[in-house]
């Protein structure tokens, strides 16, 4: 899961990035509207946290530009402006959620989780695929009720595949959503991680679709 944080306050930006990384996300950051708009326009994020009072280009304009260009990425507006007129303007510009400062980090994390989940069409915070269960709220993974330990990259890989349960996910897509923008994108490493993840899960829910990518499905697991 890849998240973009657009916030001009350096400290707050760092805290958001840290908290999101701790929550198992890959995070990119931008400090002004122009940079934020460029990243959101060119990179495939799963959710974007957007401040409104940004230098160079303000948040509402950034959001409107994305929406006009057809970008459907869920956007959470994080702002000090708490008037209803601001909220109405934010939602009308295409926001999916709105949090006013000052805020609690847990709230942001919960809202981001909900946004990502909703975008993928899941209602509950717990994603399941056969015997495998992933709780997005506390980043725990169980197989047949037994907890298993995953590295953060393995967790991100599993979470992305489970969010897109039943769909085929290409290697490129995986790379784009698992690593931040500076990562050297060698898709061969993905194969290595998929192999490790299969071994740790111990159940056959992760299929390789030749020439296309990977897919999670509960059919044909060995148990």
């Amino acid at each position: 899961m890849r998240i973009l944080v657009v916030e001009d306050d350096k400290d707050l930006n760092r805290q958001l990035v840290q908290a999101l990384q701790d929550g198992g996300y890959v995070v990119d950051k931008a400090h002004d509207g122009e940079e934020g708009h460029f990243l959101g326009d060119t990179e495939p994020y799963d959710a974007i946290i957007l401040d409104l009072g940004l230098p160079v280009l303000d948040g509402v304009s950034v959001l409107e530009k994305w929406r006009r260009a057809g970008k459907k990425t869920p956007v959470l507006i994080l702002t000090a402006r708490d008037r209803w007129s601001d909220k109405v303007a934010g939602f009308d510009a295409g926001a999916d959620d709105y949090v006013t400062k000052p805020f609690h980090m847990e709230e942001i994390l919960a809202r981001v989780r909900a946004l990502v989940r909703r975008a993928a069409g899941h209602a509950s915070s717990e994603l399941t695929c056969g015997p495998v269960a992933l709780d997005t709220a506390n980043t725990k993974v169980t197989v047949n009720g037994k907890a298993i330990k995953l590295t953060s990259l393995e967790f991100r890989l599993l979470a992305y595949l489970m969010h897109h349960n039943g769909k085929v996910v290409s290697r490129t897509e995986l790379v784009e959503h698992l690593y931040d923008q500076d990562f050297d994108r060698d898709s061969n490493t993905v194969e290595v991680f998929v192999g490790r993840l299969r071994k740790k899960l111990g159940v056959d829910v992760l299929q390789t679709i030749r020439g296309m990518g990977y897919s999670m499905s509960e059919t044909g697991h060995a148990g």
Partner: protein
Amino acid sequence: MRANSLWFRLIASSAGMAIILLATAAFLLNAIFQQALERNFDQRLRASLDGILAAIELGPDGKPQLQTPLADTRFSLPLSGWYWQISAADSYNKLAASPSLLEEQLTPPETALSIRDKDGVAAFAMPDIQGTHLRVIEQNVKLFGGQKEYAFLVAGNFDELKAEISSFNNTLMAVLAALGLALLAALLFQVRFALKPLVDMQHQLNDIRSGKGELLADNFPREIQPVADELNLLVESNFEIIERARMQVGNLAHALKTPISVLTNEASGSKNPLAGKVQEQLGVMRDQINLYLDRARRAARAQAIGASTEVEPVLQSLARTLQRINSQRNLSIKVEAPPNLRFRGERQDLEEMVGNLMDNGCKWAKSSILVKAMPTTSDEGRTWLLITVEDDGPGIPPEKRASALKRGERLDESKPGSGLGMSIIAETASMYSGLLSLDQSGQGGLKANLKLPMVA
């Protein structure tokens, strides 16, 4: 009317001047009339004197004697005030006199005799023995065939003209008094007329202060228009200062929110007792910021009279926004509002009041909230805008509804909110002389009634 007022100064000075002028006029007119009467009287006395001179002759004893008595019988009545007397010019001994004089003798004061006209006639006033006011003329004449000069003196009763004089004086006083009153009335009108622009200015300033007007008019008289212009500049700069202060408070408060977020996040990650203290104080700061932001907004409202906002689009946009905020909950938010219903006030205030009520409704509702706007007529016959927000949540029991509207009260700490919401709505509503009341909804939950001024 206070002594220290332009009104008093103008009235007092003009009235004083008028009194002095009227009194002088009265005195002068009286003197002129008296003089005219005296001249006329003197003419009659001259006629009598001519009659005496024609009838006088020196008697055998060398004394002058009247040959035929005078026709005028008043000279015969004793002490009638009508006398004639002939005496030696040098010694003033009575030689002959009218019977009316009896044994008395008229001795004119010496100063009176020194002023004579071109005929050698002296005219003066003197009293007789009875105190009757006499008008006297005197002429020194040499009688035919003699060298001796005699003083001829004729006196008339001037008191007989008293009635005429007092009648004239009465008329004069009445006319002057009427003139004075007319002057005073004209003066009052004039002062009122002249001071009216000042009164107008006061009213306009009052309107500005109470928010009914924005600036003073530019059609004041030439003398006070500069003052009005200066006042307008003052009013404008006052508005600017308020606006600037308000914006700065707003900017400060908003700017503080980001650092508070940063501190909150840093502190929440630590188990250090200091972190706990920081968290607690940050909570206080958050509430203070909300409070002062609210006040700054309210200060701006004082000048926002005359605005009008269409209700229906505001309710729709709020419903749309709240639908998205609560998109996971499958809430039904229904708005029933006729088009062209207008709130007399700022759009932002309506948004804040109704938005908070609807947000509150959404927080507590099980499945639906209903927002209605309609005109309503109060007991006094005034038409108000009534906005109701109903939810199907648990509601508030009647005994707790009053405290829900108080500042800082939060009935349930389990839902997020600063505890300012309801009280801010109520305070904003009362600024528009409106009212927020809570009631039981037909859907089972809370029904909030917001009564606001309407554009008819």
